[in-house]
C-alpha cells in the first residue's frame, strides 16, 4: 500500500497550513482595518495632502498648486489666525472650568434622595439635548437689546440697555455663557454617575474617623472622581475645539473679529476665501492641538491609575 505521502509533501503541507494559520487573523481583521483606514485615517491623510496645496475651492483640483509648507508659513504670519487661536483657547479655559465647577456642585447637591430627585436630575440635563444652532439662536434673541428678555429684566431693575452682542467684550462673554449654560449638565451627568459609584463604606469610615464635609471632599471625593473629571475635561476640550454653529448664529465671529474662534476662521478660509489648502492646514493644526490635550490628560489619568495600583499593592 502506498497511501502514505512522502515526507517532503507532508512537510510542505504542514508549512503551508502554518502559513495559512498565521495569515488567518490578518484576513479576518482586514475588513475592519480597511474600514478604519477609509473612515478614520484616510480623511486625515487627505487633509494633510490638501494642506500642502494652494487650492481654490470653486476652481476644482485642476488648478491646484503645490506649495509645500507654504500654507503653514502663511498661517504663522496671519494675525487673524493667532487671534482666533487665542480666542479659542480662552473659550476653553474659561468655559470648561466653570462648567466643571457647576456640574460638580450640582452632582454633590443632588447626590441624595429627596422628593422629586429623579425629575430634578432629568430636567437639569435638558440643555445638553438642545441643538447647538438652536441654542445660539435662542441666546441671540434673549440678548437682543430692545426685545430680549434679559435687557427687559435689567431695564426693570433700572440698569441701562446693553448691546450684548455689539460690544467685543460682552459678545465674547455671551458665547462663553451660552456654552456654559448648554454644557454644564454634561459635566453634572458624568460626575453624578461617578459620585454614585463611590462606595458608601468609605464615606462612613471617614465620618467615624471624624472627617467633616470639606475633608471628605478634599481627601476622598475629589481623588476618587479624578479619573472621571479628567475624562470629562478631555471630552469637553475636544468638543469645545470644534464649537461652531452656536457661535456662528450668535455673532458670525463679530463684532469685528471679537468672537472669530478657530473653527469659524477655518470655515471662513474654506468657504469665504475659497482657500481649501489654508483651511486644511488649520484643520491639521487643530488635530495636533487636540492630540496634545488628549495625550496630556490621558497621561495624567494613567499616572493616577499607577498611583492607585501602588496604593492597592
Amino acid at each position, binding site marked *: 500500500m502506498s497511501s502514505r505521502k512522502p515526507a517532503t509533501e507532508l512537510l510542505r503541507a504542514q508549512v503551508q497550513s502554518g502559513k495559512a494559520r498565521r495569515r488567518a487573523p490578518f484576513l479576518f481583521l482586514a475588513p475592519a482595518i480597511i474600514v478604519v483606514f477609509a473612515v478614520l485615517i484616510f480623511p486625515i491623510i487627505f487633509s494633510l495632502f490638501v494642506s500642502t496645496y494652494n487650492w481654490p475651492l470653486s*476652481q*476644482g483640483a485642476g488648478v491646484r498648486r503645490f506649495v509645500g509648507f507654504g500654507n503653514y508659513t502663511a498661517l504663522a504670519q496671519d494675525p487673524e489666525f493667532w487671534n482666533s487661536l487665542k480666542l479659542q483657547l480662552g473659550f476653553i479655559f474659561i468655559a470648561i472650568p466653570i462648567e466643571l465647577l457647576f456640574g460638580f456642585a450640582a452632582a454633590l447637591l443632588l447626590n441624595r434622595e429627596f422628593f422629586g430627585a429623579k425629575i430634578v436630575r432629568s430636567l437639569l440635563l435638558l440643555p445638553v439635548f438642545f441643538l447647538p444652532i438652536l441654542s445660539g439662536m435662542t441666546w441671540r434673541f434673549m440678548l*437682543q437689546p430692545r426685545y430680549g428678555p434679559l435687557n427687559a429684566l435689567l431695564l426693570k431693575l433700572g440698569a441701562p440697555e446693553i*448691546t450684548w452682542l*455689539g460690544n467685543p467684550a460682552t459678545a465674547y462673554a455671551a458665547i462663553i455663557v451660552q456654552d456654559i449654560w448648554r454644557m454644564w449638565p454634561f459635566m453634572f451627568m458624568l460626575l453624578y454617575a461617578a459620585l454614585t459609584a463611590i462606595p458608601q463604606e468609605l464615606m462612613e469610615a471617614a465620618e467615624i474617623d471624624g472627617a467633616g464635609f470639606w475633608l471628605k471632599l478634599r481627601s476622598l471625593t475629589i481623588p476618587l472622581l479624578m479619573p472621571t473629571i479628567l475624562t470629562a475635561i478631555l471630552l469637553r476640550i475636544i468638543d469645545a475645539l470644534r464649537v461652531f454653529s452656536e457661535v456662528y448664529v450668535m455673532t458670525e465671529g*463679530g*463684532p*469685528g473679529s471679537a468672537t472669530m474662534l478657530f473653527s469659524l476662521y477655518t470655515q471662513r478660509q474654506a*468657504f469665504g476665501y475659497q482657500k481649501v489648502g489654508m483651511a486644511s492646514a488649520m484643520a491639521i493644526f487643530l488635530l495636533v492641538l487636540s492630540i496634545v490635550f488628549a495625550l496630556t490628560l490621558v497621561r495624567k489619568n494613567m499616572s493616577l491609575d499607577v498611583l492607585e495600583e501602588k496604593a492597592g499593592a
Partner: protein
Amino acid sequence: MKKALIVLAFVLAFASMVSAQTINVLFWDDAYPRTLMERIPEFEKATGIKVNIEILQPPQVFTKTSVSVSKDHTDYDLVCVDEGNIPLFASLMLPYDQWGPGKVFKKIDPNTVTPAMLDVAQWDGKLIGLPINGNLYVWMTRKDLIENPKYKADFKAKYGYDLGVPQTFQQMLDEGTYFYDNGIVSGGFGPFNGGPAGVFGEAIFMWESYGTHFIEWVKGKPTLVVDKAKAVQGMEFYKKLMKISPKGAETMAHVERQAAFCADPKGVFTQFIWPAQIASYEDPDKSLVAGKIVYSAPPAGPAGRFAIRGTWAVNIPLASKNKDAAAEFVYWWASKDIATWLVEKNTVPARTDALTDPRFAKTKPWLAAIAESMKYAAARPRFNEVAQVQDIVKKYWIMGITGQMPCDDAMQKIIDETKDVLKKAGY
C-alpha cells in the same frame, strides 16, 4: 382585458417617469424665489420638466455653489449667483449666447433686462447668465411722521426748512435726530451692520457718496484707489447716524432692521431697503407701518446720489447635462407674463416692461423709486478676493462707526490690510 389595461397603465406610468427630465436648481432664500415657487407646477406641466429646488440662505448658496459646481461636474443645472461672486464662478458657467433657443418658451432678449441690472452678469466681455431680479438700494421714510402737522411745524421752527423725504445726507441726519431726540422713534436711522457683504455695501455707499471709489480695475488688476480723507468723512458721517440708531444697531442685520422698522411701536424714521424685502414691510400681518412708507431714491451725499446694487443672476454650469431644460426654465421665469405676476406679488424682477407697467403705478409706489434709484446704480467692486476684503472692511468699519477706534485709524487699517490681500493675491 382588465389585466392588459392594468399592465398598460403601469407601462405608461413607468414611461412617463423615465421620460420626465429633472433639473436641479439652487435658489437663494428670499421672498422673490419663494413667490416664484407657487407657479413652478405650471412650468412643469407645460414642459414636462421637473424642477427640483434647493433654497438656501445667500452665504450657503455661495458655499454650495463653490463645493458643488466645477468645470467637469455639477450637482445643479441652474444656480443663482450673487453679483459680487460672478468673477469667481464666471469660468464655470455657460455664456448666455450659447444657451439653447427654447422649445416651449422663447429665449429672452437680454435687452428686456433693465440696463442698470444687465451689467451684473457681464464678465470679461461676456454675458454669462441672466440677471433675474431688480435689487438695489431704495430709501424708505415714514410717511406718517413727515406728514404729521405738529412735527412739521416743530421741525421747521427748529431747523428752518420743511420736513420731508430726505434728499440729502444732512437732511436725513437733521430729521432723524429730531425724531430720535424727541423720543418719537426708536431709531432716527436704520443702519445695516450684519454680514460682511452688506456692511461692505454700506461702506461703498458712503464712500461713493463722499466722492471716492474704493477698488477699481486698472490695467486688468483690481487696484486700491480710495481717497482716504473722503472715505474717513463718509465713515464719520455714518458714526453720527449710528448715534441716532436703535439700540443694538452695532449688530443689526435684516431681521433686526425689519423688527425695528415694522414691529417696534415707535419704529425707525428712515433706512435703505432691498426691494426684495418690500413685500414683508408692506404686509399688514407682519408690519405696523404697512402703507405708511414713502419710497425714494437714496439721499445724496456731498458727491451725489448712489444706489448700491445687489442683484442675482441665474447661471447654467458648463458641466450641466440638462442645459436646454435649465434654459427653458429661465426663459419661463424671465418671461413678461411671470415677471408681471411677480410684480403683482410685490416682488421685483429685472424686466423693464414689468417694472414700468402703468397698471402698477398707483398700487406699487416703490416701483417708481426703484426706477429712480436705477439712475444712480453703483456696484460693489468685484474680484476673486472680495470676501477677504469684505471681512477687513466690516471689521474696521464697525470699529470706526461704533467708536471703538478713531475713524482715521480704522480707514488706515482697511487700506493697509486690503493692500496686503491684493499683494498676496499677486495683483
